[in-house]
């Protein structure tokens, strides 16, 4: 199963429930919401599979709807990958 990790050149700061990231490769800075902040914070040290990440986030955000959360997580991972913040490792 593929694992999700933080791109090496990305640094970030959690500011309240938001997150600011700096991408060393492009020089871009992004302001991200609380879900993105939680994802980045969980994968900052060790790559995690989507299932593990899902379990952690479902506890953090107390979601009643697993399908909705799973779709939401897919969408966030895709977005953060396209920004150059997350890697998908096989």
């Amino acid at each position, binding site marked *: 199963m593929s694992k999700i990790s933080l791109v090496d050149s990305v*640094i970030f*700061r959690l*500011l*309240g429930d*938001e997150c*600011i990231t700096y991408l*060393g490769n492009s*020089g871009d*800075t992004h302001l991200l919401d609380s879900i993105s902040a939680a994802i980045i914070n969980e994968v900052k040290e060790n790559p995690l599979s989507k299932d593990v990440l899902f379990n952690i986030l479902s506890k953090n955000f107390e979601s009643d709807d697993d399908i909705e959360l799973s779709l939401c997580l897919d969408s966030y991972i895709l977005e953060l990958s396209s920004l150059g913040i997350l890697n998908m490792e096989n």
Partner: protein
Amino acid sequence: MSQFELRNRLADGLRFKVGNVHISISSTIPEVVEHFEALYCSYELLDKSEFIDFYIQVLAPSIFRRFFRPQVNFSFDGFFPFKPLPYSQAAAMFEWGLNWCITTHSHQYLMIHSSIVEKNGEILILPGASGKGKSTLCAALVCSGWRLYSDEMALIAIENGKIFAVPRPISLKNQSLNIIQNFSNDVVFGSTVTNTAKGDLAFMKVPEQSLEGISGDAIPSKIIFPFYKGKSATHFQAVSKGTAFMQMIENSFNYNALGKTGFEVLSKIIENCDCFNLTYDSLEEAVSGINRLGEK
């Protein structure tokens, strides 16, 4: 210093310091002499052995241009970065040119387009583009007991996040001139410069208390984004640190040039500050609101 002595020193190259910035200015233009006599008489002079950061000249471009549609030129280290301006704008050209010198050559700092004031050790950053009411609010705060660190830019040391004072005359434009004259009887202005690209403007003298011990540095504790809106109620609204971070980037002169260092310095500043948007019409209400915030 007498006007005669000032005129001679300006012709020869007057050396003075503003905070940590050492400047040499040469000019024989009467408007520049008057500008210095009115607004710079309390600044510390430097002798010839001191290192100078910026060698500036404000001169007429040619003898012909002293008489026919007279113009003035700004030179920095013998380089002319700008087209000439009308002669009557010589003093303003010095101030604008010095802003350019500092913001293009001081990358040991993260530089934010903002006013900075201090009271009882508390530093406020008031970022904002031209026209937002930043300088007017800054002038009102300075007239109300706050000490001026800078009207135009925050110089934040990249190694420790401390702000260095550069207390130069406050640039006020158009209706702000009357507003501040009505706000305080103690305010001193230089000559009004008319028909500039920004309208009519004048520079307000920095009170002497702001120049005492100005080499000190300090960590800011609040960031307030001012927005003047006519006929609006005075309103402070807390801003998330993330949003404030992005607004600070928008107002930075060199965040992108500093790369990762800029990110880390700005992170430290934001983590330490409470952040607000301030919409105001009444200066009195805005100043008293800021005073109350400072007491909390």
